[in-house]
């Protein structure tokens, strides 16, 4: 069964998310931040809006996967690596967090987070590792397989690489699977130590995009 959503719809979603974060949400939060109410829900036509102040340590069930303690890979636990799910839109969240006005919360929570949970969220790995157009400076080379990571000679900070260049291999049952650079750029550093067991999609090498580097 193919994903029913096309690229246009997905891009509209992304645009909507940005508009929401930039313009509407801060105002809404600023206005409501002073009220002593636990949760509000409003419905209008196709839309349902719910505002909720977390009861305690914050939610909850649906986020457990990412909270899983680092118990994975006991055979390799010297590396302390947890193959937890990478949080989607990490870069988006970080970049907008700084600019969000009206944050009057005083608790020690980890700051605002944005997680679109509409259709097309799963099985769509690409966007998870890419910064939005013109947004971030960095890209990540991820693991093409489950196995043991061995960085190659180019996986050294400062090395200039082109998109498709090999950065190392993930050994899957003796068969090396190439880790390649997703962009023309410069290697910032290796995220995972040599010999570490990695899962599919795991972030391995940090890169800066060449065009942005040039533009500095």
């Amino acid at each position, binding site marked *: *069964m*193919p*994903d*029913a959503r096309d690229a246009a719809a997905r891009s509209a979603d992304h645009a909507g998310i940005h508009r929401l974060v930039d313009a509407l949400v801060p105002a809404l939060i600023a206005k409501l931040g002073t009220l002593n109410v636990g949760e509000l829900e409003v419905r209008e036509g196709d839309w349902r809006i719910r505002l909720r102040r977390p009861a305690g340590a914050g939610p909850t*069930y*649906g986020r*457990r*996967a990412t909270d*899983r303690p680092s*118990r*994975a*890979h*006991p*055979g*390799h636990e010297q590396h302390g690596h947890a*193959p937890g*799910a990478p949080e989607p839109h990490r870069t988006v969240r970080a970049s907008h967090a700084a600019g969000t006005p009206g944050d009057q919360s005083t608790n020690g929570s980890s700051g605002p987070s944005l997680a679109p*949970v509409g*259709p097309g*969220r*799963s*099985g769509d*790995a690409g966007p998870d590792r890419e910064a939005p157009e013109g947004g971030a400076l960095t890209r990540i080379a991820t693991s093409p*397989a*489950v*196995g*043991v990571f061995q960085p190659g000679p180019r996986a050294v900070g400062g090395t200039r690489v082109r998109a498709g260049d090999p950065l190392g291999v993930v050994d*899957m*049952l003796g*068969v090396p699977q190439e880790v390649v650079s997703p962009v023309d750029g410069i290697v910032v550093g290796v995220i995972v130590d040599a010999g570490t*067991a*990695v*899962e*599919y*999609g*795991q972030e391995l090498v940090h890169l800066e995009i060449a065009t942005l580097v040039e533009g500095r």
Partner: protein
Amino acid sequence: MFRKILIANRGEIALRILRACRTLDVEAVVAYSEADRDSLPVQLADEAICIGPADARRSYLSAPAVISAAVVTGCDAVHPGYGFLSEDETFAEVVRAHDLTFIGPPPEVLDRFASKEGTRRLLGGYGLPTIPGSDGMLRDDEHALHEAERIGYPVLIKPSAGGGGKGMRMVRTPRELESAIKVCRSEARSAFGDDSLYLEKWLEDNRHVEVQVAVDRYGHGVHLGERDCSVQRRHQKILEEAPAPTLSPAARADLCERAIRAVVAAGYENVGTLEFLVDARSDFYFIEINCRIQVEHPVTEMLTGIDLVATQIRIAAGEPLGFSQADVQSRGHAIELRINAEDPANDFRPGAGVVEAYQAPGGPGIRMDSHLYPGYEVPPYYDSLLGKLIAWGPDRPTAIARGRAALDELVVDGLTTNVEIHKALLASETFLDGRMTTNLLDRIGSAAFLAAAARS
């Protein structure tokens, strides 16, 4: 016992295996595809590892990905669940080559039972009746008439080279046979370039009845009774129950005892299911064996109180079965309803989407095996099974009444499900009388069946 098991599957069966591991106090690692990152088994697992993208060929069906995951997480066994790699004897061999145990029959046993035709001959040799057919290809009309007489009408004329029902014809009398055989020969010649034909007995209005067995490495085997899986839609089971409502206790005992005797004699190992067609006279014919845990295994668990997945794991670990046939006591009646993300109004087209609200039914005798939770997004890449609602009662009417009440309690908002057809089934006289046969829903048409239920 194993130290750590890789669960190489998803959905409700991954959850089921995880629960068995917990009960056995064995660590478990859930292997998942990117599409299943937020799934319940992944969330509940102590440990989980992403093995590939949504595409099952690069994740759940990829032997290297699964085995590599088992190796790097330090597992000593792999549980394949059902579907995916569960009956792939090559996979089982590669698993063993990496010093891991495949939880299921050992590779050589899988190999012995790999061919359907070979298994029918093998178990036929150990006393299981198979569907009667002609003695080889039909030489001429006289031979055909003779063989048909011996098998008994109606018979099915089948082209040797055909498949998928193409070029087959059912005949009820010698006269029909004589005229049909010419047509069949010419059709077969033009379609397949081969006009060899053979005969097979035509089973009208048959039921699908299967026998659950468990055999340990030491040749000690028991049956755990039968299940009736006659409620099917296009050869897909949608409701299973036990005991089979139309078998007499004597017929049931005969079927089950012959099944376990044959598989033990043939050297089967681990849990397995022998499938039979049963005709209106309770004559049964062996069709095939499933060398794995089945979707409908909870029906048997409800009756016997025996954990089949734990049994499967213990046998694979080399433990003796630990109980005898006399210890297998069946109590009451159980029905399993497969809850699928399918649209009955649109030819049961499978669907996907976010579970807006989910509430499992409960109460005495109710068990819901499901990986749903509120907010879970059912991915579109895999099968449409959302869960299995199992209702047990001391007798069939109570099990049905509880199933009906449980269907009314079940909430799955945000997805279209096939709950409607289960409600119709549990209200249909044909089902209540135990008269469902494998082709009934398709003959009436599932839509017509639903419409009839809505009218009454």
